[in-house]
Every structure is written in C-alpha cells, then in structure tokens.
C-alpha cells in the first residue's frame, strides 16, 4: 500500500504529460507508506520513447536527500505513454530488486488520454509481480 495526496498524484501525471512522447521517471519518498516528496529524475535512455534509464547522478542526489531527511524510498515511478499501467517484461528484467527490495514500481499510464492511471507493484528478484494498493486522498 502506498498513499499519495491528490496533489502528488497530479504532479506525477503532469510530469508524465510534460515528458510525452518520452517516458519519464522519478522517486517517491516518505514515511510509513505515505508519500511526502515526489522527486523528478531525468530519463537518460538512448531511446526515451520506449525506455527509461534514471540518471545515475539524480539517483545519487535524490537517495542522499531521502537519507538526510530521514525518509524511506517508497518507490520508483515511470510513465507508459502507450501501454497499460502494468510492468512490461523489460520493467521486470531491469527492476533493481537487489538494491531496493522494499521499493514499489509505480507506473503512470497515459494510454487513455483523459484517464491517466497510476498503479503500484512489488517486483521481487525472481521477477514475481504483486500489485499493491494505491490510495489517493
């Protein structure tokens, strides 16, 4: 379960729309499953329309900031511009469960233009996918 405010949800959707047609990505930080900060990161993939690769220096800076704030890294988010909000085979094979066993994989889908979707998944090192609840309040 991950909890976001309506504003935080809107921030992620706005980020996804602003990056269109490219995929965007970022990190959610907070405490006890409640998001407190939406950190946007740069997508440095060579083919950003269909892939994302989070800027490593952004990861370093953001994870340091999360540590210093005494927060937890709750999840990584990225957008799907043309597919549903479900982890692709690439998402699963590239998922860094080794480093971040507790972080959720959040996907914001713009497939239906008027109905952006945000879903969250736990992906383990073996590639098992389990959906987690996203509460927007």
């Amino acid at each position, binding site marked *: 379960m991950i909890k976001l405010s309506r504003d935080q949800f809107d921030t992620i959707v706005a980020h996804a729309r602003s990056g269109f047609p490219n995929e965007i990505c970022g990190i959610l930080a907070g405490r006890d499953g409640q998001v407190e900060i939406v950190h946007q990161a740069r997508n440095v993939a060579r083919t950003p329309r269909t892939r994302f690769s989070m800027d*490593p220096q952004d990861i370093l800076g953001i994870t340091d900031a999360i540590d210093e704030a005494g927060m937890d890294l709750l999840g990584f988010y990225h957008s799907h511009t043309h597919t549903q909000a479900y982890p692709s085979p*690439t998402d699963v094979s590239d998922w860094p469960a080794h480093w971040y066993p507790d972080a959720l994989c959040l996907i914001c889908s713009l497939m239906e233009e008027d109905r952006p979707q945000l879903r969250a998944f736990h992906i383990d090192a073996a590639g098992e996918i389990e959906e987690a609840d996203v509460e927007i309040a």
Partner: protein
Amino acid sequence: MSVEIQVPTVLRPHTGGERVVHVEGDTVSAAIASLESRFPGLRTELLNDDGQVRQFVNIYVNDEDIRYLNRLDTKLADGDRMAILPAVAGGQYRVTDNLEGQAGVR
C-alpha cells in the same frame, strides 16, 4: 595515486556508512581490488562471476560511464573521481521490439 570513490546509500553498509572513500589504483579494476581489500565483500556487489560489471551497477569516472570509456581498464589519474551508482531502468515494450519510430503516433 589516490582516487575518490562515491558510494551509493545501498552500498554504505559495506563502507561503515562512508559516502566517500579514497583508494589507490591506476585503473577502475585496480581501484575495485583496493576497495575489496579494505571492505571485503564489496567486489561481488559490483562484479559478476565473470568479472564484468553487474547489470544493476553503473560506474562513472569523472561523470563518464565506463561502458563508453575503457570499461574496467579505464585509466585513473591522481584526484580522479569514480562513482558507483545503482541502475534503475525499464521500458514499456519488450527489449526486442523496435517501436521507436512509431511511438509518437496517437
């Protein structure tokens, strides 16, 4: 020959919490060996059994990805900065799909 190595949060348990460590080494490979001698166990976090950089690891020298330099043989000079960073990536289609040209259509 001393180089500065930035250690990401996920690996700091290996370095006693240190964010930056200094080691000796004139190549990335030598620096990793010297890291391993100070912090046993760190090498296997970075390299696989074939001695190659793991999929979820990026190593940068002065902000350049060593995959685009000379990989583990990349030379280090006194004062160089090496960063070890976790890789976070994905994509909405299969790796083998080539939809890059069509993806903007909607």
